[in-house]
């Protein structure tokens, strides 16, 4: 094997431009595959991290009537907070959230919103809820940048808010925007209005009630609670997993095409080699190689393209991938319109597993593609091959 590796290396380096063209194409595949996969892993990590920080914490309890995809359930989705969570809430390790359906009237227009009551002192979410702890002449409210943009609202703007209390009676008051925050999680920003929890409870006559209870510690054992549904973190991020999976499948097609192009070049080189290097094949056999060993040599030669490609790819790929990890890739359109947790700039994350798996897959495929045409050598007549006669 050592001899085959040495000879294969000499043959490849000796073949010059043809080898380097194949190596460059293949190295490009390496770098692009690792970069694309890195972007997906980075997106996955970023999306889950953003969701944790802005929306789901370490997991949640949902009121049993609550259905995020059906706003009509909001009227019934509230209940007193179970006594067993009192200590956790007092420690700040659990945040109650009360939600009601409402309407706001910015600049004479009408917009349905989910009014969310949240404790201004909470620190589980990155929401700037401390801005709700402000003495103003209207109810303080914070909104997301996406909604502020679409409704043309700015900090300090007043608008009328209407809601129905627990008894079904409509009421209205003025709110003032005390902060506009920017997250990468559209569901936190789109048609959401955050006001102080106690204010909303008074407004709706839902004393000590909540719709969602978000806890900080994802690892703690959670018991079932009557009237509430436990939603572990992995359940809440499952939608992101599904999107990433779909994207991964889509991108697999892209880099399969990329790989196919590189493999075509290798295959072509191998087929040509077997015809053009017949005398050489005969010489190897005359000097003491078996035909099987020559097949092995040609296969190693082909496979070595991928090793050289990995090295060449490392030369320009490592600086490029490191630079991308630092500056990220900015999506050339507004990611906020995509409707899913996605930052405008994605930062690729590369793991050793990703790099090793990619290299192994490419080396394996290259070896198979190299072996396929080389099998013809096993059927060659060495005396004909020595004379370079086409067989």
């Amino acid at each position, binding site marked *: 094997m050592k*001899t085959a590796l*040495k*000879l294969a290396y*000499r*043959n490849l*380096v*000796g*073949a010059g431009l043809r080898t380097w063209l194949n190596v460059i194409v293949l190295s490009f595949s390496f770098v692009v595959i690792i970069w694309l996969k890195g972007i997906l892993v980075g997106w996955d990590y970023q999306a889950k991290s953003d969701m944790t920080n802005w929306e789901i914490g370490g997991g949640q309890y949902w009121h049993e009537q609550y259905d995020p995809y059906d706003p009509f359930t909001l009227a019934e989705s509230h209940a007193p907070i179970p006594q067993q969570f009192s200590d956790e809430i007092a420690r700040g390790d659990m945040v109650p959230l009360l939600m009601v359906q409402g309407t706001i009237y910015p600049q004479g227009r009408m917009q349905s919103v989910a009014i969310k009551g949240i404790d201004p002192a909470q620190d589980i979410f990155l929401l700037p809820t401390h801005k709700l702890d402000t003495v103003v002449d209207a109810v303080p409210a914070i909104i997301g940048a996406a909604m502020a943009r679409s409704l043309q609202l700015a900090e300090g703007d007043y608008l009328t808010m209407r809601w129905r209390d627990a008894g079904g009676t409509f009421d209205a008051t003025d709110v003032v925007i005390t902060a506009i925050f920017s997250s990468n999680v559209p569901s936190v920003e789109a048609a959401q209005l955050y006001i102080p929890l106690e204010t909303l409870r008074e407004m709706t006559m839902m004393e000590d009630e909540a719709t969602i209870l978000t806890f900080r510690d994802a690892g703690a054992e959670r018991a079932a609670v009557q009237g509430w549904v436990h939603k572990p973190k992995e359940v809440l991020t499952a939608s992101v997993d599904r999107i990433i999976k779909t994207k991964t499948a889509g991108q697999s097609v892209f880099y399969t095409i990329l790989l196919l192009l590189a493999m075509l070049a290798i295959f072509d080189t191998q087929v040509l080699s077997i015809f053009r290097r017949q*005398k*050489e094949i*005969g*010489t190897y*056999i*005359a*000097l*003491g*190689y*078996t*035909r*099987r*060993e020559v097949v092995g040599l040609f296969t190693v030669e082909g496979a070595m393209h991928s090793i050289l490609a990995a090295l060449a790819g490392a030369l320009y790929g490592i600086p490029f991938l490191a630079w991308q990890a630092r500056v990220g890739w900015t999506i050339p359109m507004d990611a906020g319109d995509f409707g899913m947790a996605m930052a405008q700039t994605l930062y690729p994350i590369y793991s050793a597993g990703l790099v090793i798996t990619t290299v192994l897959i490419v080396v394996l495929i290259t070896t198979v593609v190299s072996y396929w045409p080389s099998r013809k050598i096993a059927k060659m007549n*060495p*005396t004909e091959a*020595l004379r*370079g006669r086409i067989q």
Partner: protein
Amino acid sequence: MDNNAIIQIRELTKSFPMGKSAFTALSDINLSLGKGEFTGLIGPSGSGKTTLLNIVGSLDTPTSGEAWVLNQSVGRLTAREAAQLRKESLGFIFQSYNLLVVHTVFENVEFPLLLLKIGAAERRKMVMDALEWVGLTDKVRSKPPQLSGGECQRVAIARAMVKRPSLVLADEPTANLDAANSHHILQTMVKLNEELKTTFLFATHDEKVIGYLRRKIYLLDGKVAQDEWVKVDQTEK
């Protein structure tokens, strides 16, 4: 069987299928070659000399009969055993040199030693010795396309001789060379034959080569037509 013989051939026949019939290239060949011989298979094209050389070189097998090379019956060897025989004991010199064009002169000569898994330091010494025999120590880094035909054939001789084989098989070694280069090559081979006692078997119809042979085996239509020994003083004229 004569155990002192390098090559022993008994009632050897070789046929090639040609459509529904068969072409007999060699018929009922009986020969024996001893150690240190400088012998040629002489005959016109199609007389079977290259076919016989290929069988002796274990690159081909007889249709019937036996060819014993270094006490091994080539027709009965497995592919691995035949490769082992070629690797350890046989050297080949071809009409068109058959050098590895992308390798340097050094690497070409080194190749048989790599297959024998000889250590790097010893390998280097053996290669340089072989290149010294053929007078090419100043070309170690050149590649075959940078060499003349004569130089290429000298590299091929060095490659065949570097492992000190028992038997060297040379198929029309001077066919692509001019007279001066042919004589130079042949004198080199005669010197190696005398100094190292290596057996040389040629397939040729070149008068220049025939002039150096000590034993001439004439083949005609696949049969031995004549087998004659030459007095030493005739080859030294």
